[in-house]
């Protein structure tokens, strides 16, 4: 087939930096990895068991487009008890195929050609391409290590134009592990409150914060009506493969998103939806246990990097550490490639999450302590050699 058959919009989107690095890593046998973006736990057995049970019962038919009403009720209860935000399960919640689908739907539902979307970076890989594919213009805001990778009001204000339609708020953040605390959000809210800018708050890591409880920007006064909360089951319940996410927000927006969802997707997988109900009803203890376990490993990794003299800000969310490698005078990609070939450790170059990730590497601590310690040992050896 001629490549012109593919739309120029899609052709012009560069391949993901992660994908490129993935191909290199696959050449190296027995590399140990700190490269994943998913928990190392299996989905709690009671949740899987519920999925199996519903399969046995033959619950294998479509659900309503928005998702099972019981599930939406559980999501509503959960958001209210955990984050103090209230949504009507009937028309303010949409169950999606992973949080990723919700991001895509939201952007497609709001953007007209030329509308600008503010995207703090470094951040998850899909915001930019999804914005472009929806006809919008991504405007990146570079967050800085000295601000602990939080979005500052000054930065936000200086990027707002007449065309700004939405702000993506990706906290707790992948890849930096940064969080936004209540005071930070309040400052952002001050700037947004009299403007018609939708906040797309990607809170997929909301359950994984350490020492500070996650605050949703939707819980602040003035913000509820202009915020779409996106969350899901992947990180909190170790359910990445189930593809279960959801969006909660103003009913006009949810209705528009449901329109796209019903034509493109129909409904999220039924088995996964039933499993999701079980997770929300009886999964609190699992989440707490996993959070503790991540926290232990987070401390081991941060401590390890600091001990070897690397600048490493303390991440308070997600399961990544984002140390600076600027001292070594190599680009992120060069560092990661050399580290892989010489010490057989795979970490992800910060540039996979935007140009502003240059000078950083993303290391995931969703691994056993033994694996983390061995990887740190090898990284230390590598650094000593090049310092």
């Amino acid at each position: 087939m001629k490549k012109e058959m593919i739309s120029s919009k899609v052709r012009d989107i560069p391949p993901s930096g992660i994908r490129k690095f993935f191909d290199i890593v696959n050449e190296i046998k027995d590399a140990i990895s700190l490269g994943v973006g998913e928990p190392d736990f299996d989905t709690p057995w009671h949740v899987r068991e519920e999925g199996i049970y519903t399969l046995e019962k033959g619950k294998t038919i479509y659900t309503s487009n928005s998702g099972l009403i019981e599930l939406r009720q559980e999501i509503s209860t959960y958001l209210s008890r955990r984050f103090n935000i209230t949504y009507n399960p009937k028309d303010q919640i949409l169950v999606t195929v992973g949080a990723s689908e919700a991001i895509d739907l939201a952007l497609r539902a709001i953007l007209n050609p030329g509308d600008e979307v503010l995207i703090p970076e470094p951040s998850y890989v899909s915001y930019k391409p999804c914005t472009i594919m929806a006809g919008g213009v991504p405007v990146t805001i570079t967050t800085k290590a000295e601000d602990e990778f939080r979005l500052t009001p000054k930065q936000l204000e200086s990027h707002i134009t007449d065309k700004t339609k939405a702000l993506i708020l990706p906290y707790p953040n992948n890849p930096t592990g940064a969080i936004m605390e209540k005071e930070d959000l309040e400052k952002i809210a001050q700037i947004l409150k009299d403007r018609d800018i939708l906040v797309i708050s990607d809170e997929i890591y909301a359950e994984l914060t350490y020492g500070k409880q996650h605050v949703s920007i939707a819980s602040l006064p003035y913000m509820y009506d202009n915020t779409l909360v996106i969350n899901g089951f992947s990180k909190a319940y170790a359910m990445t493969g189930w593809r279960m996410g959801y969006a909660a927000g103003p009913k006009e927006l949810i209705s528009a998103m449901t329109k796209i969802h019903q034509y493109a997707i129909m409904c999220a997988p039924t088995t996964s939806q039933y499993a999701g109900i079980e997770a929300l009803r009886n999964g609190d203890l699992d989440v707490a246990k996993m959070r503790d376990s991540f926290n232990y490993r987070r401390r081991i990794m941060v401590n390890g990097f600091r001990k070897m003299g690397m600048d490493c800000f303390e991440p308070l969310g997600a399961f990544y550490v984002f140390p600076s490698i600027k001292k070594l005078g190599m680009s992120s990609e060069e560092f990661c490639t050399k580290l892989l070939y010489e010490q057989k450790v795979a970490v992800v170059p910060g540039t996979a999450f935007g140009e502003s990730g240059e000078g950083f590497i993303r290391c995931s601590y969703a691994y056993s302590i033994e694996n983390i310690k061995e990887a740190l040992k090898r990284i230390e050896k590598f650094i000593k050699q090049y310092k």
Partner: protein
Amino acid sequence: MREEILEILEKNSKLNAEDIAIMLNIPKEEVEKEIEQMEKEQIICGYNTLINWEKTNKDLVTALIEVKVTPQRGEGFDKIAERIYRFDEVKAVYLMSGGFDLTVIIEGKTMKEVALFVAQKLAPLEAVLSTATHFVLKKYKDHGISFELSDKDERMVISP
């Protein structure tokens, strides 16, 4: 803090005081002190290794024995339990509610060896009224760890 230390050690006794100190964000000396103290108080009673002997060449059979006994005046079940748990062959003894009194777990090289122990040492004890021996054919899971499931990491090495 004690409970946190214990929970960490219960899952992985290979971790040293330094690791635990980092994990809990407290000074190493404090962890060392607590562990030593808990050893003294016999809260920490030992550091075992969980082994799946079936994968080795060693012959080993395990039996679970239901024992009915007559409790003794003033001693209850403790005295007879002690007479049983002092045998080296006995790996565990639990006082039970329900249809029998003691669960006794015995390990031996062969079924015959275990059966002889029951017949010659356990059953003849004066307070023992009856025994029922059940041999373990296969261990699927022990101490919270599955012997069957692979812990191979099947995740993609790099993902966003």
